């Protein structure tokens, strides 16, 4: 025991060879910053005990991440955790010396406390480039107005927040990536936010409250991922948009809308997406697209579209029509994914084959990979697969996965029988 304690006394004479062997302490500051930035904040700050030279090396790290790894005391006492976390962050911010480029706060026990306001103020003075705030539980947190004055922001990510920028807010000039999930924001603020960030390239929006009409006016937008409840989506000025993933999380009732508006949602949707490369239509969004008039094919084919994923109810005629229109409008499609939507009530099985082979042999000229998942072996689904197999001359893989074990054998037997246009086609059957 005593020997261990003695070890903690400083060695009066650091050996010469030690100084030669120490290669790390004299690395340039920005390199040390890089190394320390890659450590969890605990380890980074702990480096201050290593030696004289290391005492303040951690204080210039540009990247501060406070997450669940921060401290490993799990406790049920909310105030205890809160005090501890607040303490830690207060101290780190105070002792930090230099600009902070990345700040992430995402601790599962942290509620939207007013201390966060203080931290955001501190950071807003520091030319912050990436800001991530995740409030895991509790009420929606409203970030203070100083957050909206951080013009150096390039990436902003908020979870469980209420966005209400000050009236003087003029947008984030440098913002390239915006990720908002579980947020509350009004229609006006949303539109203003999007249109006033001219450099925006990526937009993720999930589970939002307060916006019903998604108007996306973003000239540099390339990536768009949205999931929530809305009534309308329209793209203005989105010439470069290449990746779109949209999920409408509410089942819309088509009959309601018939009287009002017969314009084609489908046409409107694609009119400003000339260069779309990857499209994912999730949840009930296909139903939305099927509203109004659906042409047999789009006037301008999506020549760049090479990956398409659709959540579809094979028994719904409107949805099938919309899907067919889409399939006819992407001549260069390489990957296709059809996900069967599990419907609450079983719709009546149609006796007619919607996917009757109409000699569309040039339909899937480049299609190589197909996945059809979540099917139950009903006629409409099998009709589609049959149609697919006989019209894809360069198909390499078809992956089929049923939703349950019921009727597996029948399904497989049918699959076996289908004609295949491609001699290279493999049919891969995955267990449910």
């Amino acid at each position, binding site marked *: 025991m005593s020997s261990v304690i003695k070890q903690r006394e*400083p060695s009066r004479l650091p050996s010469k060879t030690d100084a030669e*062997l120490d290669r790390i302490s004299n690395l340039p500051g920005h390199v040390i910053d890089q190394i320390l930035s890659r450590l969890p904040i605990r380890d980074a700050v702990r480096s201050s005990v290593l*030696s*004289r030279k290391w005492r303040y090396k951690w*204080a210039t790290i540009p990247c501060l991440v406070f997450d669940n790894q921060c401290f490993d005391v799990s406790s049920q006492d909310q105030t205890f955790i809160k005090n501890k976390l607040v303490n830690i962050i207060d101290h780190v911010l105070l002792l930090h010396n230099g600009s902070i480029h990345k700040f992430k706060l995402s601790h599962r026990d942290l509620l939207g406390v007013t201390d966060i306001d203080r931290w955001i103020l501190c950071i807003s003075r520091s030319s912050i480039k990436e800001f991530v705030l995740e409030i895991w539980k509790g009420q929606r947190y409203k970030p203070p107005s100083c957050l909206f004055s951080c013009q150096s922001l390039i990436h902003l990510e908020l979870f469980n927040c209420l966005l209400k920028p000050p009236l003087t807010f003029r947008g984030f000039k440098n913002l390239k990536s915006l990720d908002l999930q579980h947020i509350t924001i009004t229609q006006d603020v949303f539109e203003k936010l999007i249109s006033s960030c001219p450099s925006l390239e990526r937009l993720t929006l999930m589970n939002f409250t307060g916006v019903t009409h998604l108007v996306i006016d973003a000239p540099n937008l390339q990536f768009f991922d949205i999931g929530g409840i809305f009534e309308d989506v329209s793209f203005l000025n989105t010439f470069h948009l290449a990746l779109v993933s949209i999920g409408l999380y509410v089942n819309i009732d088509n009959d309601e809308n018939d009287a009002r508006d017969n314009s084609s949602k489908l046409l409107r949707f694609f009119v400003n997406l000339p260069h779309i490369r990857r499209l994912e239509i999730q949840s009930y969004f296909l139903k939305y697209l099927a509203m109004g008039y659906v042409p047999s094919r789009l006037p301008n084919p999506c020549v760049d579209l090479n990956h398409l994923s659709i959540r579809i109810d094979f028994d719904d005629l409107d949805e099938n029509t919309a899907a067919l229109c889409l399939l006819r409008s992407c001549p260069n499609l390489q990957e296709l994914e059809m996900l069967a939507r599990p419907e609450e009530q079983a719709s009546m099985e149609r006796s007619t084959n919607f996917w009757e082979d109409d000699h569309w042999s040039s339909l899937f000229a480049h299609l190589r990979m197909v996945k059809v998942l979540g099917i139950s072996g009903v006629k409409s689904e099998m009709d589609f697969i049959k149609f697919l197999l006989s019209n894809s001359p360069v198909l390499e893989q078809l992956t089929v996965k049923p939703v349950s074990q019921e009727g597996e054998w029948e399904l497989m037997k049918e699959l076996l029988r289908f004609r295949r246009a491609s001699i290279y086609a493999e049919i891969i059957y995955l267990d449910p």
Partner: protein
Amino acid sequence: MSEVDMAVIKPEMMKSYIWLQTADGSIQQVEQEVAMFCPMICHEVIQKGMGSSKNYAISLPQRVNPAMLSLILDYCRFHQVPGRSNKERKSFDEKFIRMDTKRLCELTSAADSLQLKPLVDLTSRALARIIEGKSPEEIREIFHLPDDLTEEEKLEPLKNTTDDPRIRLLNRLYAKKRKELKERQKLKNVEVEEERVDDRSVDDLLSFINGDNGDSKGIKTSKSKKKNRRRKDQQKNTSANEVLKTHNKELNGLNSVCCSAEVGQKSRGGVGATSNLNDVEDDIFTSKNELDDGDIDDEIDPALKEKIDREVEDFARRLNSDWPERMQEILSFGHERKPVHFSLNGNGSLRRYANSEQR
């Protein structure tokens, strides 16, 4: 050979080479596309026209020795080929990075001087992986860092997340020792006390406390300080200030000078210029470790206080002897002291907790 001649010959050669010279004077030629992968070399070639012949070899920065250069060129040779998949590159990187720590540091330095950012990223990641999760002692050993922080700086409390009574008592010990050091420091400043180098072991210190009462001012004041302790639960700082206040009075109004020049250390309470060490001990996550339970001041009646103090000193002695034997002793004493603080935590052995024990 003049440069014109070189220019004529070049088209006939399948590859063009760039000449590089390392700090030790040795010159070598490297395929152009490989060498140009390094921004610094690229700059030299394009902006200054260097490197085309042996006489005009590009002098590389001092941090790039021949061994490192060869490694760097291996890296460049692989990565400059455009057709490689991400998977291939990743797998190469992972194998490439396997080397001893010393070389890794040298490589980082060399890559940085050549501005080869991807390689610097790779090596920093590897170094971070080595550092992550290790205790300071381990890190010092791996990187040969001198252990040169002064005792004062190092006497930070240990983390006591499991509320281990042993750690609690040990921390009390440290607190005592810290106070002592501080007092001595102050006394030094006023040139009242004689020079004293504190490299006594904990044992000596405690025997001092127990036995020699009338000697130094420092010890005396620490003892009298005990009387003025207040309980603190979470407000450790305010009571620490209280203690210092009393202490100040006893030293005839000597103001404690903030000796540690900690940049930006928050001093709570604002009692004069309090030394930051004490205040910092519990809450500052940054400096060293967290202290959950560093109660140095308890609001308890004197009798109980003395009992606890005795236990503290006793415990310190135990640090240097065997645990089980002592346990017997305690139990046999029975009424005199209630061994409330000595509940064994499941493991009967007394381990010396290093700084970063709790993970």
